[in-house]
C-alpha cells in the first residue's frame, strides 16, 4: 500500500550518522549495563572490584573466543544465513590443533591445520547450502552433528591432551589475563581480535565483496538480477566465517590447553546472540561488526557483574535472555519508525 511522505519526520538519518545509528543502540546498552553493575558493586560492602582495569582485561579476555567466532557469524547473518555448526566446528578445530601438537608437529603446522579445518568446515557448509539449495538452518543443523562426530572420531571420544612442553609459550600467553608487558594492556589474542574486527568491518563496507554480501542478504533475487555470483559469494562467506571459527578454536585451546570434542556444544548460541544483540537481523541484510563486538561484551559484562555481585549463574542467564529479546524488540521498533 502506498503511504504519505513524511520527510520532516526524519531529520536524523544523515549519511554520517549511519554507522552510529546501527551501532548506537547496543553501545548505549553496554554503557548502561556497565554503569548499573559498577554502581551496584560499589554499594555492596566488599565491592569495588567491578570497575577496575583488571576486570576490564578479564571481560575482554573471556569474551574474545565468542567475539572472534561472531565476526564470521556476522557476515553469515548479513548474507541471510546462519551457522549452527559454529560451536562444534570450534571444538573440532581445537582438537585438530591439539592432535598435531601431541603428535609432535611444530606449532605452525598445528595452527595451520586448525585454521584450515575451520575453513574447510565452512567451505563444506557453504557448498552444501548452495548446491543442495537447502536452507542454512537445516544444513548446519546437520553439519553441527557431523563435526561433533568427527571431533569424537579424531579424539577417540576423549580429550586430546598435548604435553605442556609441546605447547609453545606464545599460545599460553595468547589469552592470558596476566599480560606480560604492561603497556600492552590486553593480551595478544585480544589485539588480534580487534585487528581482525577492523579488517572485516572495512571489508564489509569498502569492498565489492562486502557489498555483494549485503545484496544477497537483503534480496537474493536482486543480487541474481544484478549479475552477482550468488553461490560463489555464499561459499566465500562461509569459508571466511569458518576461518574465524578456527581462530576461536585456537583461542579455546589456548585457554583450556586440551582439545575436548564436547567443549563446543552449544557455543554457537552465544555467538549468534552477540550478532543479534549487536543489531544483526536473522532475515539478512543488516548487522555490523561494531554492534557484534558490543553484543559479545554486553554478555560478558553481565556475567562478570553477576559474579562481582555474587549472584548465581542462573541470574546471569535470565538477564542475558531478557537482553536478547529486549535488544531485538527495541531494534524493530526503531526500524518501524524509520520505514514509511
Amino acid at each position, binding site marked *: *500500500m*502506498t*503511504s*504519505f*511522505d*513524511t*520527510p*520532516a*519526520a*526524519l531529520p536524523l*538519518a*544523515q*549519511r554520517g550518522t*549511519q554507522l552510529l545509528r546501527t551501532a548506537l543502540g547496543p553501545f548505549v546498552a553496554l554503557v548502561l549495563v556497565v554503569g548499573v553493575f559498577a554502581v551496584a558493586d560499589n554499594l555492596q560492602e566488599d565491592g569495588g572490584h567491578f570497575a577496575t582495569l583488571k576486570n576490564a582485561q578479564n571481560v575482554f579476555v573471556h569474551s574474545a573466543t565468542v567475539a572472534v567466532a561472531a565476526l564470521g557469524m556476522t557476515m553469515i547473518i548479513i548474507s541471510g544465513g546462519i551457522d549452527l555448526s559454529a560451536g562444534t566446528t570450534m571444538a573440532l578445530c581445537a582438537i585438530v590443533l591439539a592432535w598435531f601438537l601431541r603428535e609432535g608437529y611444530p606449532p605452525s603446522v598445528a595452527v595451520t591445520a586448525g585454521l584450515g579445518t575451520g575453513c574447510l568446515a565452512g567451505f563444506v557448509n557453504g557448498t552444501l547450502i548452495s548446491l543442495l539449495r537447502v536452507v542454512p538452518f537445516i544444513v548446519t543443523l546437520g553439519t553441527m552433528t557431523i563435526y561433533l562426530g568427527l571431533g569424537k572420531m579424531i579424539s577417540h571420544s576423549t580429550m586430546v591432551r598435548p604435553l605442556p612442553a609441546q605447547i609453545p609459550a606464545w599460545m599460553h600467553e595468547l589469552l592470558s589475563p596476566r599480560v606480560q608487558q604492561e603497556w600492552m594492556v590486553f593480551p595478544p589474542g585480544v589485539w588480534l581480535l580487534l585487528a581482525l574486527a577492523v579488517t572485516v568491518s572495512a571489508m564489509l563496507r*569498502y*569492498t*565489492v*565483496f562486502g*557489498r*555483494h554480501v*549485503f*545484496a544477497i542478504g*537483503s*534480496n537474493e*533475487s*536482486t*543480487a*541474481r*538480477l*544484478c*549479475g*552477482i*555470483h550468488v553461490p560463489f559469494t555464499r561459499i566465500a562467506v562461509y569459508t571466511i566465517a569458518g576461518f574465524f571459527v578456527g581462530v576461536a578454536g585456537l583461542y579455546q585451546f589456548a585457554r583450556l590447553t586440551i582439545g575436548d570434542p564436547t567443549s563446543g556444544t552449544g557455543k554457537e548460541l552465544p555467538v549468534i546472540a552477540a550478532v543479534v544483540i549487536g543489531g544483526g537481523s536473522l532475515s539478512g*541484510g*543488516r548487522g555490523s561488526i561494531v554492534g557484534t563486538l558490543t553484543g559479545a561484551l554486553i554478555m560478558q559484562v553481565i556475567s562478570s557483574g553477576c559474579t562481582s555481585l555474587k549472584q548465581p549463574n542462573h541470574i546471569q542467564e535470565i538477564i542475558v535472555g531478557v537482553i536478547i529479546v529486549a535488544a531485538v524488540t527495541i531494534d524493530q521498533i526503531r526500524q518501524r519508525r*524509520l*520505514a*514509511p
Partner: protein
Amino acid sequence: METALLRMSDVSKSFGATHALSCVSLEARGGEVLALIGENGAGKSTLMKILSGAIAPDSGQMELAGARYAPKGPHDARMAGVAMIYQELNLAPDLSVAENVMLGQELRRFGLVRRSAGHTRVRQALELLGRTDLSLDLPVRQLSVADQQVVEIARALVIEAKLIVFDEPTSSLTQHDVDNLFRVIGKLKASGLAIIYISHFLEEIRRIADRYTVLRDGSVAGSGMLAGASEGDIVALMVGRKVDDLFPSVPHTPGKVVLSLQSLAGRTTPKDVSFELRRGEILGIAGLVGAGRTELLRCVFALDPVRNGTVRVMGITPGGTPRARILAGLGLVSEDRKGEGLAQRESIADNITYSRLAPYSTLGWLNLRQRRAVVGDWMRSLNVKARSVEQNVEQLSGGNQQKVALARVLHQDAEVLLLDEPTRGIDVGTKSEIYRLMAVLAAEGKAIIFVSSYFTELLSVCDRVGVMARGRLREIRPAGAWSSASILTSALGVETST
C-alpha cells in the same frame, strides 16, 4: 438514490508538520461507484486509514447512513458496515474459501463453529457475486489472485457491509480478470451498496465509476460526474497543471539489429519465439498475465533456463548467466520491485551500482566518494526525489523506486533494455517521465523491449507491438496497425483455437 450513505465533512489530519489531509469533504451514495483519484502522496492512503478506523482524524465529521461514524478501530469500522479490499490481500492461504470468508465472524453455538450454517452464508454471498463455481473447501492458496479477491469481497458481504472501499484492486490482475472484477462491482452496485474505488488508472475509472473526487496534496482538487469530464480534465486536476501530452514524443529511428532471438524456448514458456530488435526501437510486448511475457524477458536475460534456441546480442551469443548477459549489454528491470527488482533495505547508491561496481573498484576496494558523485548525477538526471544517495530504497515512493531500478540498467550501460511492466503502480506524473525517458533513450540508439498489460501505453510509446499468448509470440505489427481491441482479440484468440 439521492441521500449520501457516507458523508465526510472537513476532515483534516496532520502528522507533525505535514498536513496529510486538510478539510476534505466527500460523499458516497448507495448504488453508486465513487472514484477516488490522486497521485501517490495525495492523501488517499490517509483517507482510507481514517475510513477504516486505523487512525482518527484531527477534526471534521463523518456520517454513515445518517448516524455519526467515528470508528475506534478497524473492527469497529467493519461492524459499522465499512469493508476495505486492499491491494495486498489479507487471506489465510491454507484455510479454505469458506473458512476465509467466515474468518473472525464464525457462527457459533456453545463455542463450536456452525460449519454448515456458515457455508450457507458463504454460498449466498458467492451467488450474489455470480461466482457459484468457486469450491468452498479449496485452500485459498490454490486460487488465482483474482479469485482470492472474490473471496475478500464475499467476506465483506457476509458482514453486511454498506460501503466497500477498493484500494487499487486491479494492480495485480490481468485484463480478463479486471473485466470479471468489474462485473462483480456492477452487481454490488445494483444491490444498493456504496462503493469507493481508489485507482490511478483513468481508463478503468471511466468504465466503472459514476462520480469522481480528485485529491491533490491532501485537499479535494475537484469532483463531479464522470460522464461530463474528459481524461485531460481529470489529469489536470491530479497534477495541478495542464498535461498536454501524457505520452511525450521524441522522434527516433530504428538502426542496426542489436538483439535477435531464434526459436527461443524456456522450460514451459516461452515457446519458439523469434524476432529481431533494432537500435533506436521500442518493441512492445502485449498479452495476458501468464502469456509468458515475463518468462521471455527472463530467458533472454538468462535468469530462467533456456531449453532451446539462441539469443544473439550484436552478433555474438553471450554466456548463459545474468552476469554474461549484463556484460553483453542487456539490462532487465523486473516487474516485481519489492521481491526482485530492488534490495529494499539497501541504499539508492547500492541499488544503482550493484550490477556494475567495477568503475569504483581497485583490487576489490571501493572508492565510495567517487561512487556517491556518480550516483548523485544519475539521481539528478532521472529526477529521483530522495534525501541523499544513502537513503534506503524502501523509504521512496513507487515512482522513485522505479527510477532507481531504471537508473541501474542505465548505469550499467545496457544497450538493450528489457522493461517488465515499468509503469505498474506508479503515479501519472512519473509515468509520463518514464515514457519520455524511453523515447529519449531510443533516440540515443538504445533498444527497448517494453512489456505491459496497459494497451494504451504500448500503442502510444512503441514502434512495434508483439502479442503473446500461451507462451508463443502471435504476431508483431507496427503500433499503428493495432488497436486495444485487436490486441485483446489476438491475445485471447490463441486460447480458443488451441
